[in-house]
């Protein structure tokens, strides 16, 4: 078994009186694609947000390569998210005022890379994700499937160790959803990145190596049938 990259242990999180997570635990290993499944409101997105350091859990710990996120400063956590994590969400993630190539270059620019260098690298990734022809288009000028591919390029441009994908195909039809999943999985496999994938679609989950099921804020321990 490869090494544990990311772990969430006994995570609890409440929003007001509603418990979103109630003792959820999961591991992500190197080069592994894990799907988080569960009904709406089960806590699967909150689990992803806790693992990604976007939301701080009320109880329990999240650790990346053994380092607890809760013990990091805000600055360290931001740097971790920028350099080691990539994100793909369902929609609304590209900055509408920026061109596609500027959007893809954004995480590199935030990390301090020069504009020209960042855009050269962004272009390479856009070619790889088959959206090299959309460099100067604004997000509003491209289709949903193209926009999501641009988002995949942006998630991978920094060479992250983990890509967090929350319903990445939720706004797409079956054909475009398939294309996006293929690109996401193929490039993650090539670069050695792991993927934490939240989805309610079983066909999308079938791209994962294994699944974690969340129900009522708890992760179900399921015997693996594979």
């Amino acid at each position, binding site marked *: 078994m490869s090494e544990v990259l990311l772990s969430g242990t006994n995570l609890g999180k409440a929003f007001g009186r509603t418990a979103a997570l109630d003792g959820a635990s999961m591991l992500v290993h190197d080069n592994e694609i894990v799907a988080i499944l569960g009904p709406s409101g089960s806590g699967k997105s909150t689990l992803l947000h806790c693992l990604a350091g976007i939301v701080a859990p009320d109880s329990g710990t999240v650790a990346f390569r053994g380092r607890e996120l809760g013990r990091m400063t805000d600055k360290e956590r931001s740097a971790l998210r920028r350099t080691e994590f990539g994100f793909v969400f369902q929609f609304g993630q590209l900055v509408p005022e920026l061109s596609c190539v500027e959007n893809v270059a954004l995480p590199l620019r935030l990390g301090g890379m020069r504009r020209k260098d960042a855009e050269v690298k962004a272009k390479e990734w856009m070619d790889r994700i088959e959206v090299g022809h959309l460099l100067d288009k604004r997000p509003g000028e491209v289709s949903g499937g193209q926009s999501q591919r641009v988002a995949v390029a942006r998630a991978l441009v920094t060479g992250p160790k983990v890509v967090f994908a929350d319903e990445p195909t939720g706004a797409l039809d079956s054909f475009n959803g398939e294309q996006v999943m293929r690109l996401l999985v193929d490039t993650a496999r090539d670069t050695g990145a792991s993927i934490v994938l939240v989805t309610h679609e079983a066909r999308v989950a079938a791209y994962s190596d294994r*699944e974690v099921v969340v129900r009522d804020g708890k992760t179900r321990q399921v015997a693996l049938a594979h």
Partner: protein
Amino acid sequence: MSIGHALLGLLETGPRHGYDLKRVYDERFGHDRPLAYGQVYSTLSRLLRNGLVEERGVEAGGGPERKRYAITDAGVTDVSEWLVTPENPQIYLQSALYTKVVLALMSDRDAEEVLDAQRSAHLASMRELTARKRAGDLTDQLICDHALFHLEADLRWLELTAARLADLAKQVTG
């Protein structure tokens, strides 16, 4: 799946002998289940008896069966009717899984465990199909997608049932 109609459809592109028909059928449709020779010849004799195909000469050369078959006008009409006749949607009103869930609830066992195990098995099959689809050609993709959508439908039912377990428990134990 009507083998007879599929063979008739293939014969519409031109006369063929039995071996050739089997080869084309297997290539196009027989990924999982290639046709047995016996099945090809028994189907052809039935089609011949019903006037849907006719013999069109014997090919020179060795081999056990070199007769060539051609589709008749009646055969063409038969294929046309078959193509536009919808297949019966298959409905599984009393699935084994439903029975297991109800029995688990009646005996106060953990019905979620039944559903979890099934979800896991379904996803394992779906992963295999996805891998096969990704490595295969367009034919593989279409065949695997058909199976994947059906398995996904099962899983949607499973998730809905999981969400309704408490209500179902009241009903079966009440």
